[in-house]
């Protein structure tokens, strides 16, 4: 998929400019796909940043299994040890130098920007064969406009975690709407407990996911321009909830990834948490061996005012990179990998594929025998179907900065969504993409 010569006319046609690009790339790949044969195995390079931690089935072990069964398609995985942002810099450098990997893990929110930068291959045609393995909503996460660029791997709908025993002691039920949530927070706070944490460092994904759960769509298109709507009705509902809790001092204010959160969790102050599905894999690790072990459960989010819905908080897919010579073979492996439920679950992930996954033994123990994976799958089905990301979403980290000011009492929660709106528009303009005001 080297630079494609374009005519003015093609450019004009391309309100969806990627379409023509997609066609060109399809042409390329189909000729390339003829090349491999049984005697001459193709090599698929695959860069990921899965944890490969203690007690997990490592990516290498899983890939070994594939390689043994598929002599024609040999996969070489590489674990990248840095952060997601560092990995995208490395990928960009490699792909521009012509030696990028064939497959690479990528957060859903980063996909559109990587596509704009020309890092991803359009594999719409090749991916069609695997349509039925993934729900439409999940597939949409790895689509940019009409082009499919890979397959989803794990998914992070927001859910509600809570300590059932503590809730019973306090006489509160799992809140099903925001009024109940406020009431429960008040009851718990009277007893020195918090049923949720406000986490400034997660401001970006956590709050945008709640806005999605409240029914908002942040990025849509009007003809050939982006429309950004980050402070709509849903965002206002979310803002008013947290503003009330903050004003009444009925919420724990801690950074999610700071040690204060762990402390509140282990000392029993924090008895509920609005969090992503993938947190189920490790959230309760620190409670192992304490009396709180086995007391927690997972439930759906309360109704944020637009029916029971969830919003996407993280999760990632595996994209086919620009320059991959055998996208067909790559996708064949990828589909197998992303439907290997036990492997993904062992890595602490909630598979995005439409498969039944048995709750791992560790989760069963930590969640008192609950069918955690079943509950998380319901949240996945409840995901807001219309919440695509736009290029430049990573710059909305300004939301976290503003959320921190909110925590310090220097700003209102609504300001966070205002910031999201202005940052998103400015970033799209800086990227040179059309924005409709």
């Amino acid at each position: 998929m080297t630079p494609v010569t374009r005519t003015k006319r093609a450019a004009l046609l391309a309100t969806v400019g990627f379409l023509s690009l997609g066609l060109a790339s399809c042409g390329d790949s189909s000729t390339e796909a003829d090349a491999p044969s049984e005697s001459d195995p193709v090599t698929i390079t695959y860069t990921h940043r899965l944890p490969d931690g203690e007690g997990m089935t490592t990516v290498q072990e899983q890939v070994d299994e594939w390689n043994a069964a598929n002599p024609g398609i040999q996969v070489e995985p590489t674990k990248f040890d840095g952060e997601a942002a560092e990995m995208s810099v490395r990928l960009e450098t490699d792909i521009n130098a012509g030696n990028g990997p064939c497959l690479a893990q990528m957060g859903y929110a980063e996909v559109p920007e990587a596509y704009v930068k020309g890092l991803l291959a359009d594999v719409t045609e090749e991916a069609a064969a695997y349509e039925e393995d993934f729900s439409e909503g999940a597939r949409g996460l790895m689509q940019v406009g009409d082009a499919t660029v890979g397959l989803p791997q794990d998914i992070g709908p927001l859910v509600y975690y809570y300590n059932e025993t503590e809730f019973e002691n306090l006489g509160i039920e799992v809140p099903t709407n925001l009024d109940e949530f406020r009431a429960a927070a008040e009851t718990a706070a009277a007893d020195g407990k918090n049923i949720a944490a406000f986490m400034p460092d997660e401001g970006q994904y956590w709050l945008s996911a709640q806005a999605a759960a409240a029914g908002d769509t942040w990025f849509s298109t009007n003809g050939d321009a982006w429309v950004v709507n980050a402070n709509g009705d849903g965002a206002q509902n979310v803002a008013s909830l947290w503003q009330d809790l903050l004003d009444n001092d009925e919420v724990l204010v801690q950074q999610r990834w700071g040690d204060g959160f762990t402390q509140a969790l282990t000392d029993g102050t924090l008895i509920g948490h609005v969090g992503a599905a993938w947190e189920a894999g490790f959230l309760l690790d620190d409670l192992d061996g304490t009396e709180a072990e086995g007391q927690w459960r997972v439930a759906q989010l309360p109704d944020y005012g637009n029916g029971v819905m969830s919003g996407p908080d993280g999760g990632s897919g595996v994209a086919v990179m620009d320059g991959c010579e055998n996208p067909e073979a790559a996708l064949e492996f990828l589909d197998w990998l992303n439907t290997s439920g036990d492997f993904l679950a062992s890595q602490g992930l909630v598979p995005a594929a439409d498969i039944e996954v048995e709750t791992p033994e560790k989760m069963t123990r930590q969640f008192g025998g609950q069918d955690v994976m079943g509950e998380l799958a319901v949240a996945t089905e409840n995901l807001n179907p219309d919440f695509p990301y736009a290029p430049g979403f990573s710059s909305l980290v300004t939301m976290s900065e503003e959320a921190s000011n909110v925590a310090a009492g220097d700003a209102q929660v609504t300001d966070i969504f205002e910031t999201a709106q202005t940052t998103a528009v400015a970033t799209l303009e800086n990227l040179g993409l059309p924005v409709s005001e």
Partner: protein
Amino acid sequence: MSSIVEAAEKPIRRQIKSVEDQPPRSIAPSPVSRVVTTVVLTLVTLYFLLPVIWLIVASTKSNSDLASTFGFWFADMNLGTNYESLMSWTQGLFWRWVGNSLFYSLTAGVVGTLISTMAGYAVAKFVFPGRRTMLAATMAGLLMPIALLTIPLYTVFNAVGATNTVWSIIIPSCVSPFGVFLGVVYAQTSVPDEVLEAARIDGAGEARIFFTIVLRLLTPAMVTMFLFIFVATWNNFLLPLMMISSPELKPVTLGLYGMISYFAPDKGAVMLGALLGVVPLVILFFTLQRYWRSGLTAGAVKG
């Protein structure tokens, strides 16, 4: 540097006058000043070592104990579990990574010290074309943030196919502009021209003069340079993060960084890994001790 000598000599002359009306002091310091100094240095030691002690204690704890027990005392002894966890998270490659780090740091340290000393000596003792330009360029090299040069550097190594090799770590690590400046400053003060002249009159070649005389005179400075380059190589993770993809070639700091960049790191295990990584450095430091002696007991130049 002559001005330094002048500056050093002037006050002495002045002082000779000023001490005339005082009784001669004993050369040995008084017991009071000894005690005071020891107390002061010990307090400073506490400042530097207390966090390290905290780290040692922390490496024996589980995550929940880290968040709930007093930092300077042990909770449930979790050392064995942390060690197992460390081995498991590093796929059993931990000690191999420590070995890699040792290899990279030692090689870069030795080569880097040698070439920096040579360059520093050249600037301090020879006049050659481009000398000032080279120094200015070296200074400018310090001014650009290294983190942003890593990507272009990666591109350069990529172009010659040298990424993911030991060279991609060793070559960049052994180029130390700061080492050159140290070399210049130390060569100016501790390599007297007379010694060089005398050796030349005796008919010694320039290489021989450098390797037998200059290196000996510069030993304390070189030990310092070596330590700096060694530690900087050991602790650098951005360079290997970009350059290295094979697990077999990773240095230990990169491996630990990989453990931390995951959402819920096993912190006790990570800190244990860091401490185990510091052990070779402490041993090295003590091995190098004998090259530093107090300036009063061993002048670099025998008068």
